[in-house]
């Protein structure tokens, strides 16, 4: 049943306080974390299947994304010099605490994996680091969904069931896109597959999420959030189309195929980023308008009261 659209508020003021995070830092981190996590998987697989070009691209991408992520997170702190206080405690009730722990393991591993791959030294250490990064990478890509869902922000919290799949799908798409963009054509097959699979997962999860949310999904379809989401969908569609085509005999000319593959890769990376910015801004919009807090909660109370009456009557 659609909740009543009329509601009362205090002079239209928001009930919640909006997140103070900067989009560049935090949406940027979500994007880079997904890219890094997916790339570490590609790197491990590339090592196992003898694709050194893809391996180097993926490892470099993961390490660079990891390093920039940490810089962005520290930059976003109100007191950046106190970033080390994140290590004071490890709390499972705080996704940010868990994430800090994950990053503390993942970023050095990704860095060592890239370093050994690019310099050719200490291959045994490189193998261990690649494996470690591949184990932690998916966790890094997924936990950020828990981080935003574990707030009172309606457009984030109400999507908690599907958000991890949206984020990991998006991360897979970005990582696959990077492989398509930068890896040698002969080795980029798995990157193409990962990107296409990622797009399917992300799209399916996103549709389920927004359908389940009801009116709280409005910020995903309107305003700044909606604009970013739509841009992500367009870029994603273009990227998928281009990537799929390069996997078939349709484009015989090697140079054309290379250009289309690179463009598709870039489009998918852009789509992943646009999606994160869209989710971020949709959240901000849902916190700013009291309707998204009051109406669903009123509806919940109404349903609870109706259930109580029904139980008495029954």
């Amino acid at each position: 049943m659609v909740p009543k659209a009329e509601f009362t508020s205090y002079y239209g003021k928001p009930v919640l306080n909006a997140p103070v995070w900067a989009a560049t830092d935090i949406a940027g981190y979500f994007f880079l974390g997904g890219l890094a996590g997916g790339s570490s998987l590609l790197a491990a697989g590339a090592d196992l299947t003898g694709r050194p070009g893809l391996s180097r691209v993926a490892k470099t991408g993961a390490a660079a994304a990891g390093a920039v992520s940490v810089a962005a997170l520290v930059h976003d702190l109100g007191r950046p010099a106190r970033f080390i206080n994140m290590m004071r405690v490890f709390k499972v009730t705080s996704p940010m605490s868990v994430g800090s722990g994950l990053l503390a393991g993942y970023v050095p591993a990704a860095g060592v994996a890239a370093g050994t791959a690019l310099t050719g030294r200490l291959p045994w250490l490189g193998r261990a680091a690649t494996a470690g990064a591949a184990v932690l990478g998916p966790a890094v890509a997924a936990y950020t969904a828990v981080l935003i869902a574990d707030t009172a922000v309606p457009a984030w919290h109400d999507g908690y069931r599907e958000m991890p799949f949206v984020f990991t799908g998006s991360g897979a798409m970005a990582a696959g896109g990077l492989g398509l963009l930068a890896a040698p054509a002969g080795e980029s097959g798995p990157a193409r597959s990962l990107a296409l699979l990622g797009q399917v997962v992300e799209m399916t999860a996103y549709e389920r999420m927004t359908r389940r949310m009801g009116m709280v999904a409005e910020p995903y379809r309107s305003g700044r959030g909606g604009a970013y989401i739509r841009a992500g969908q367009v870029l994603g569609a273009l990227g998928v189309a281009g990537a799929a085509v390069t996997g078939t005999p349709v484009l015989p000319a090697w140079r054309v195929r290379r250009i289309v593959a690179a463009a598709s890769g870039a489009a998918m990376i852009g789509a992943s980023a646009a999606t994160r910015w869209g989710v971020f801004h949709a959240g901000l919009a849902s916190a700013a308008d009291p309707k998204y807090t009051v109406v669903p909660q009123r509806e919940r109370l109404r349903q609870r009261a109706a259930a109580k009456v029904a139980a008495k009557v029954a």
Partner: protein
Amino acid sequence: MTAIDVQITQRPGTGRPDGMDSYPGERPRMGFFTDTSVCIGCKACEVACKEWNHVPEDGLALTGMSYDNSVGLGADTWRHVAFIEQQRPVSVADGASDDASGGASGGDAAGGADIDGGLRWLMSSDVCKHCTHAACLDVCPTGALMRTEFGTVVVQSDVCNGCGYCIPACPYGVIDQRKDDGRAWKCTLCYDRLGAGMEPACAKACPTDSIQFGLLDELRERAETRVEQLHEAGEASARLYGNDPGDGVGGDGAFFLLLDEPEVYGLPPDPVVTTRDLPSMWRRAAAAAAALAALGAASFAGSMLAGRLGAGGHLGLGGRR
């Protein structure tokens, strides 16, 4: 204030009947009961709080929101008096509710019930709820937010690194970041005064005892009596908010007697601590991470399969074979 007894540390949520964490040295839980039916909107609470805690000035503009120029709770407003002017019938004739009606209907305030639609003026001093299950405390990654021995929730400003996670986590929109400072700040329930056996500054300054401070259990009993009293006097819209340990945050350490729906005052009708859904969130994240790993494996399996079948080897699908 002496401890009544020292409780042995137990796993969080199991030591107390209301589910709040317990630990050695714990004292009985203190809190606020804000009876908005006697609030006169003098804002002594706002001033006393700012004076005692050296909270910086955060805006001197007139907002036009009745007499409310502090707008809402934030890093620099820890007590916020809300004013709502309503076209409602005045339902009670005695002195107690004249304050609640604000007296803005002029001469007939002391007379009989005005059922033709006079002005009702609601005033309420909002504050941090010091929830039993405090989302801000749960999500704080540095441990800056902590539970005190009085059962209150306090930010240790020497630890806070301004990550800002507590801010969107609070279902009431209480805690916020101080812009020039970078850290998160909120009501401490005058932790320093409690330690010295004094009551918080706002409670001390309140001239009508709208803000009452004391043992939470006692306050809850007193509030029940007060609501019954108002109902008997005909003020049917009086209700308690945040007193119920069965609500979405386990009950508030600072609860209210309101004369209208919570959202009229800018409060959420059914606040729930976000941590309640966290176990499910972690499970789903684990599933999503596993799914991503599976996608990774499938991507290589797919390409290896294509390579084995010999299809597309010259198109760059296969690996190094």
